[in-house]
């Protein structure tokens, strides 16, 4: 029983960054903007959260700085794709590489290191089987991460803003005739996706009390796969995130065993992502205006 509880607790902790990123990504994708940028938002968020926490001594301020970092990258992506009509995939790749480059540059500049930051104040991480309970107390980002997915579902399906996001993502021309500003809705959706994914990144660095180079490690892409697997529905995407997190937890448990080479264990989340993408074909219908101007 305690083993199961430990497994669940660890799954939740691993799921949090995915949940934030997927919640943000769903919003942007439903508005018609491809979310290949989640990886960069997360990395940027992780770095700026660490920086904020380092200078202020407060992980709370760190988390806010993380959001600001994600917002900045999000606006960059929004301006490129909405104002300048840049190809969304190319811009996404650029944002990701930019996040890698900028975090490396400032890591070197501020801390004279090419691998990691010093230890910074973070939210305390509990690893025991009681993490489920104590984590809720100590790390506010965990309960927030669990709530964010239903919150985004509510935003998307129960509010005027959500209706506009969906309208703009399915049929922008029709939305225009209703007096909706396609640009403004998309700017808001992309900015929100930047802020949310960055919070997921902030969780990573504040949980580990430091930033390490490339610490998002593909999580943004896995979150995007979870969105596709969840057919662009927040709740289903959230469930997919939990599934990926459970697989990763299993991977960590397997790593202790010598029977399987560690390299194969490391592949598990990435292989699962591909399998998930292959599995949804024909059933996954993206928002009609996704990727179009």
């Amino acid at each position, binding site marked *: 029983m305690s083993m199961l509880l430990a497994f669940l607790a660890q799954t939740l902790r691993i799921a949090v960054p995915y949940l934030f990123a997927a919640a943000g990504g769903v919003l942007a994708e439903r508005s018609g903007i*491809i979310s*290949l940028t989640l990886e960069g938002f997360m990395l940027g968020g992780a770095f700026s959260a660490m920086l904020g926490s380092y200078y202020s001594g407060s992980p709370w301020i760190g988390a806010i700085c993380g959001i600001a970092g994600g917002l900045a990258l999000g606006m*960059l992506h929004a*301006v*490129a794709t909405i104002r*300048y*009509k*840049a*190809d*969304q*995939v*190319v*811009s996404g*790749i*650029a*944002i*990701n*590489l*930019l*996040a*890698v*480059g*900028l975090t*490396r*540059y400032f*890591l*070197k*500049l501020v801390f004279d290191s*090419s691998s990691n930051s010093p230890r910074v104040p973070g939210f305390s991480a509990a690893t025991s089987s009681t993490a489920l309970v104590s984590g809720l107390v100590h790390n506010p980002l965990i309960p927030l991460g669990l709530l964010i997915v239903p919150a985004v579902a509510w935003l998307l399906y129960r509010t005027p803003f959500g209706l506009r996001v969906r309208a703009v993502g399915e049929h922008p021309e029709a939305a225009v005739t209703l007096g909706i500003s396609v640009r403004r809705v998309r700017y808001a959706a992309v900015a929100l996706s930047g802020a949310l994914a960055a919070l997921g990144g902030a969780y990573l660095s504040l949980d580990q009390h430091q930033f390490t180079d490339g610490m998002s490690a*593909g999580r943004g*892409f896995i979150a*995007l*796969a979870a969105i*596709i697997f969840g057919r662009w529905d927040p709740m289903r995407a959230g469930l997919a995130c939990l599934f990926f997190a459970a697989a990763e937890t299993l991977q960590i448990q397997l790593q202790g065993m010598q029977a399987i*080479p560690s*390299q*194969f264990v*490391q*592949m598990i989340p*990435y*292989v699962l*992502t*591909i399998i998930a*993408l*292959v599995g949804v*074909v*024909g059933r996954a219908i*993206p928002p009609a205006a*996704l*990727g*179009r101007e």
Partner: protein
Amino acid sequence: MSDASATAASVSDGAPAPMRTRLDRLLEAVLPPLVALLVSIVAGDLLILAVGQSPGAVYRLMLEGTWGNAYGFGQVLYKTTTLVCTGLAVAVGLRAGLFNIGAEGQLAAGGLGAALAGLALPASTSGLVAVPLCTIAAMCAGGAVGFVPGVLRAKWGAHEVITTIMLNFIVLALLSWMLSTGLRVPETLHTQAVHAGALPRLSAWWSGFHGSAANGSIAIVLFAALLADVYLFRTRGGFELRAVGLQPDASENAGIDVGRTWIRALTISGALAGLGGINFVLGYEHYYEEGFATGAGFLGIAVALVGRSNPFGVVLAALFFATLSQGGLAINALVPKQMVDALQGVVILAMAASVPEVRRLLASTRRSVR
């Protein structure tokens, strides 16, 4: 992501608009890279000023360390060689409307392929036999890695951007495992020395290059760029590939098997990235080492975009990014070399934003002239 292939095509090549003159097309090809260059210089200025250095001094140092002396230039040529390969890989994908973000893993696989072939051959094998064999092995290994996302896309519709990125992680782990099964020299991350198929350094012909890693593989790679150009623009297969990139639905109606073309494009793309492995393995260190390819695959994206997915443009763009990358080392004392990593993102973003903008501006001037 349903329209990603169509949008990819618009990046790799202009949409066929009527009334486009030769000059228009030239401007449309050349202006965006110039805009991107300007934007990246401004971004570079800001990053340099952030450290409190003078941009002029830093750029001068960058030029002196690259084109200013034979050793630096040799290093630029060495880096250009790898980047031409990964740039061509991304370019061929873009021409088919596909984003190959997996050049990183394909390049590494190519390196191990070349090393394994070299190790399997007796050390005394003539270079005339060994070099082609090792080169083919590198291309096969890279091509095999590229084949997988092609099939995943063609048969199951799994988007290649995600699958190629995931495959990077998978392939690098797989290569690391293969290396750990007894291939590597204990206490290191590299294989035994490869004797068969070694390519001479350029310094063997001209001593000015002494110490630099530039080697004979540059000739092979430039020849590959020429072949890629011929393939893309002078053969039926290349025509089909480009047609699919511009209009997959119309191509399907015209009797082209779109799925097979995607698989072929990504396999060729992977093979070209894999070819880059010979630069390090046959030309430079003469062994495969884990991590030798880090960053070159992603830089290939910038190279292909700035080179407008044209093989000759790719060679020029590779030269530019190799200069930037080597220049980063030259300025490291003043400004962290990681600046180059950031500029790479800036260049791609500026390219992506300026391509449609330039096209719109040209179209509006056309209208106002008439």
